């Protein structure tokens, strides 16, 4: 009789334990951090003060640099892919807000990761979802990223990348400003087709994989080289195109910036 009591309790306890632990063993999960390092060629990006030059010989300074990173996935050495939970996979990287340049991905299964894939911008589906599915950086009313201006209200959709600054080569406006403003978005259109500036990049980690394990929380440094935005497949002149927003030319900018990321370090 006692045995049966013990047995039933044991079985039910087992069921209980399993139903309470719906996730895999936490000892096999750990974090992986993506650390974005903003540079212009071989110089660090400093907003406002420093002056850089593109290959067309145009000097420029940068006053704003923001972009969305989304839909992150990691490939491991065995060739299988871990997709970071989609609802949690939207990050707004802003040069003015250093904490935003560190993206810590939590609860990554242990493994040796050899490549990282992400989208620059906000995928088309999320651009059309109910407001209940657009929280945090996707909420244009959220005070945590107030003033970033990463949403077009008049042509509903997110701005994927925004860079603004000055160049002495730009014809002054009536107020004497010599500003450039690149606001790049466009997810392909809601009910009529238009250009799609979503770009997905895959960065191999090279010879050193990022090892996630019980005591391993690797940091992958991704260098974002702003100079590539102007000096990519096509050379972009600030004097010729000081303003690029919702226009066909934005695709040229997106094609260039798709190649501005590279993995520069992997730390255990």
């Amino acid at each position, binding site marked *: *009789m*006692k045995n*049966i*009591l013990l*047995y*039933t*309790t044991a*079985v*039910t*306890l087992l*069921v*209980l334990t399993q*139903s*309470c632990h719906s996730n895999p063993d936490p000892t096999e999960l750990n974090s992986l951090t993506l650390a974005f390092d903003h540079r212009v060629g071989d110089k660090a990006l400093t907003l406002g003060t420093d002056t850089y030059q593109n290959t067309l010989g145009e000097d420029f300074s940068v006053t704003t640099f923001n972009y969305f990173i989304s839909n992150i996935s990691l490939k491991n050495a065995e060739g299988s892919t871990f997709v970071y939970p989609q609802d949690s996979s939207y990050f707004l990287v802003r040069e003015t807000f250093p904490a935003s340049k560190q993206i810590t991905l939590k609860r990554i299964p242990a493994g040796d990761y050899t490549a990282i894939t992400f989208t620059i911008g906000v995928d088309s589906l999320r651009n*059309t979802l*109910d*407001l*209940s599915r*657009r929280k945090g950086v996707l*909420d*244009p*009313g*959220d*005070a945590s990223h*107030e*003033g970033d201006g990463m*949403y077009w*209200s*008049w*042509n*509903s959709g997110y701005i994927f990348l925004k860079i603004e600054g000055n160049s002495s080569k730009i014809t002054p406006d009536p107020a004497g400003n010599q500003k450039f403003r690149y606001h790049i978005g466009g997810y392909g*259109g*809601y*009910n*009529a*087709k*238009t*250009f799609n500036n979503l770009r997905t990049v895959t960065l191999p980690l090279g010879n050193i994989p990022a090892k996630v394990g019980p005591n391993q929380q690797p940091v992958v440094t991704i260098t974002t080289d702003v100079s590539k935005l102007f000096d990519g497949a096509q050379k972009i002149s600030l004097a010729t195109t000081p303003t690029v927003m*919702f*226009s*066909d030319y934005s695709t040229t900018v997106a094609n260039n910036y798709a190649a501005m990321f590279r993995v520069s370090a992997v730390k255990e």
Partner: protein
Amino acid sequence: MKKTFIIGLSLGLWGWAACNRTNEPPTPTDPDPSTDKIEVPQPSYFPNKVYDLSSNPVTSAGFQLGKSLFYDGILSRNGTIACGTCHQQAAAFTHHGHDLSHGIDDRIGARNAPAIQNLAWTKAFFWDGGVPHLDLFPIAPIENPVEMDEKLPNVLRKLRESKNPNYPELFKKAFGSPDITTERFSKALSQFMLLMVSNNSRYDIYLRGTTNALTATEKEGLTIFKQKCSSCHTGELFTDQSYRNNGLSTDRNPDQGRFNITQNPEDRYKFKVPSLRNIGYTAPYMHDGRFTSLEQVLDHYSKNIKQTPNLDGLLQQDGKLGIALTEEEKQKVIAFLKTLSDEQFVQDTRFSDPGFGHSF
């Protein structure tokens, strides 16, 4: 033995249930949507709604909150401009007497404020259709520098601090807690606007079977309208919701309309075909309010169509520009169009300024 087994099993089940309970979402408090819910009417001769009401069920508390927000200047930078400033009920929620809408600091907008009516059936908003969902709409006039010139996070901040009206309390009544978020704010405004259904004009009474609700002249106007206008102003909403170039001169106003949204050269100078319901109240007409009377509008279609890029095919048939209409036919069409005026709608106190706002 059997007894012990049952005790063990029930202990286990209790444990399982207790464990499971912790995973359940918190029980929602008030309001009880089943008692508070308001149906958005579905006139039998309207198409199916496009707004998914299951994502935002209309409740009386949500509607009241939306109404407060609609008529409150708190949405603008300096408190002077409400939604109801440019969308006045007496003019079927357009900006009476204004060709272009008149916003904050006497700034003038680029387009004529459209009527707010039957939005549950509307597929896209603005003359160019740049906003594809009603919930995504309110941020646009709020952040437009020539309309309300405010920022959404600051609107939410002001609402959280507001004592009169007590917005945290109104949000609690509508959504169960005093939290004020973008989603709740936008959905409350949607709830208010979704209920603005106009289907009680004399034409509607005629449609529902009272054949003498229209005069003989109005009925003749209806027949001419169906022959000559209803290809675009289709169905009982009087719009096919497409984008078309209706041959307006672009000399004075270079607005490229739908092209701004799609960047497709074939969309240059196209604008959304507006509903004609309540057209007797909504003068002036066209995306820039260039015509002050329906006579001017019909003169445009009959003799002033301009051959501009992407001019609609229906306005250039058999090598002729425009729609053939005699003066007598025009008068009959206008007589018919005026039967689309829904007096009950423009006087419905459910939609009226509650009086605390700053909408003028």
